[in-house]
């Protein structure tokens, strides 16, 4: 059979496309890819599944969509994997985030948290040493110390780009690490609380001291470029970035990158790291359920990891999905492996903030309205980063629009 798979255009997924011949050889099924940029992909698959379009047999979705769609009954439950697939090998945090009511609805292709990547050489030159679990205050000082505008070196590069999955995700985990939360237990927006103001102010000030020009439009990719070109002292972002910045083919600083846990504000127990997985799911109602399951089993299996390792080396295997990977001696040699695992383990989607919240998810709240709200909120924040409004104005607008949207959706 011929499977149509919607997927995102990141490196791991592209790599998988190159290896599908292996799947076809094994099962006789062919695969057609619809590769889209992340935002386009989300919009596309959401429309399709909500309208029951049936354009795709497999969709690449994330931790945000899976529980919501699973609850709606839009996904085929993935509860009958073969024994050799070893479902229990999937990292519990991932499995939890991709399940609804204990049933797995999407199999993680890879998972990630976020962590600090920093330039050991610059750190040394600044006369500082990175603790394994730094605080925001340290990060800010270190960033200021590493900044050298003349040499085009920014102490720290962070996401400021509007969009819930971009700057929105980052400011949310930052706020978490300052003790803030999106909603109280009655679904009231919390942007009027001091923690948010503290977090946003801190972030904005630090970035204007030590961040790159125009960081208000920087997302993952822009920062990756900057870091690879040696223009950043530190970068806090997805753990998967580690393999890119340490890859000497692309990165000019490959041999001087260190890793540390994402920071927290002094005295706050939550750290600024998230949890995310790109996972494969089958929309309910597809005619090709069995073949689709076969594919998912192939793509998220241990064998696939080995296949990649054999072709591209261990540093390039999809990380963050399986416990066994981190027990593999070959993989342990990869410099960022342990820190990735530690970061993932430090994230707890069902208990993401200091104060209690009614939602699941660390850098998002797994409710259908969140993407829309968070995108607009992050746009307000980006306007702060670009110097177009103050922190107070942005928070006030965020508060208003969030409450408004929640009301529209019937939460309040």
């Amino acid at each position, binding site marked *: 059979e011929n499977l149509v798979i919607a997927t995102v255009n990141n490196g791991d997924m592209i790599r998988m496309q190159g290896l599908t011949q292996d799947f076809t050889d094994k099962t006789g099924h062919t695969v057609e890819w619809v590769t889209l940029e992340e935002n386009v992909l989300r919009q596309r698959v959401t429309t399709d599944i909500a309208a029951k379009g049936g354009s795709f047999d497999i969709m690449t979705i994330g931790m945000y969509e899976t529980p919501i769609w699973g609850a709606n009954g839009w996904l085929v439950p993935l509860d009958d994997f073969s024994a050799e697939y070893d479902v229990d090998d999937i990292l519990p945090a991932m499995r939890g985030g991709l399940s609804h009511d204990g049933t797995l609805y999407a199999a993680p292709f890879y998972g990630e948290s976020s962590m600090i990547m920093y330039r050991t050489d610059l750190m040394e030159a600044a006369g500082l040493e990175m603790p394994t679990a730094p605080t925001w205050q340290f990060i800010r000082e270190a960033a200021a110390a590493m900044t050298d505008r003349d040499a085009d070196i920014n102490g720290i590069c962070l996401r400021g*780009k509007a969009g819930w999955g971009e700057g929105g995700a980052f400011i949310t985990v930052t706020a978490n690490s300052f003790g803030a939360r999106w909603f109280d237990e009655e679904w009231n927006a919390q942007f009027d609380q001091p923690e948010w103001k503290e977090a946003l102010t801190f972030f904005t000030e630090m970035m204007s001291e030590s961040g790159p020009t*125009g960081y208000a439009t920087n997302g993952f990719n*822009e920062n990756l470029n*900057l870091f690879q070109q040696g223009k950043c002292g530190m970068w806090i972002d997805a753990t998967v970035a580690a393999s890119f910045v340490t890859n000497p083919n692309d990165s000019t600083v490959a041999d001087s990158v260190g890793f540390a846990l994402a920071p927290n504000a002094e005295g706050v127990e939550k750290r600024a790291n998230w949890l995310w997985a790109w996972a494969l799911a089958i929309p309910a109602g597809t005619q090709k359920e069995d073949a689709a399951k076969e594919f998912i089993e192939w793509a998220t299996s241990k064998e696939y990891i080995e296949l990649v390792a054999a072709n591209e080396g261990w540093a390039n295997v999809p990380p963050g999905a399986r416990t066994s990977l981190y027990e593999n001696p070959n993989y342990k040699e990869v410099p960022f492996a342990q820190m990735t695992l530690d970061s993932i383990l430090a994230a707890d989607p069902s208990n993401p903030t200091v104060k209690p919240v009614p939602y699941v998810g660390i850098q998002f709240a797994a409710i259908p309205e969140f*993407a829309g709200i968070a995108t*607009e909120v992050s746009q307000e924040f980006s*306007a702060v980063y670009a110097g*177009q409004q103050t922190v107070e104005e942005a928070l006030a607008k965020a508060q208003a629009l969030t409450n408004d949207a929640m009301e*529209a959706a019937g939460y309040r």
Partner: protein
Amino acid sequence: MATQHSRSAARLMMAPAVVLLLGWMLVPLIMTLTFSFKQYLPLRGGDLGWVGFDNYVRFVSSSAFWPSVVATLTIVGGVLIITVVLGILLAILLNQPMWGQGIVRILVIAPFFVMPTVSALVWKNMFMDPVNGLFAHLWKFFGAEPVAWLSEASMPSIVMIVSWQWLPFATLILLTAIQSLDSEQLEAAEMDGAPPIKRFGYIILPHLGRAITIVILIQTIFLLAVFAEIFVTTGGAFGTRTLTYLIYQRVLESQNVGLGSAGGVYAIILANIVAIFLMRIVGKNLDA
């Protein structure tokens, strides 16, 4: 030339186009209208019943509404002004005798062939990127601080990108119009003692009136719907959220089809206000 026979034939031959367009307009319009009076949330199970004018009220009372109208009009107005003014100047220049006129014309037309997505990507990454963009290099070369175009000057940047795409169209139409100007009129004005500037103001510009209205009409239709450029560059941040983009956010990002549909109805109303305004001018000019 109109016999009974040809008139009925004409009606028959109009029919396919009219029926198709009527369907294309009415079917989605009726569905949009229906949705707009409903709580329609695909992610919460779709149609959740009638809610009267709630969506309409909510859409306008949202803090994003008026800024989006302003953003829409700014983009439409800004691009129109730039393309028409530069288009006129370029058309005049291209109408002069020169060597390699055909090639220059090709160069000037080229942006029109570029997909909006591609043009937005190219501008955003290769020119306006504050670190690696060509502008940043240029600014640094002259010792200036690179500008973060898409955040610090978001609206002008988008207007610029869109203008770049539409300038060829304006230039082409205006060029054809200028070429149709009877050169004897210009010579008459010259004999009458009008220097070049006055010849432009008194003869060329009035002659272009009709062409300018056409440019405005056609471009407005397309500019009201500008989407890809914003989606790719700012994602609606920094005050570049147009009405179209706001609807997009409501429908696709927030998955609130009811609210978005109400927005769609507002957009239709806005478009029609603009249209009526335009038709007033253009309609008159089209008669001649």
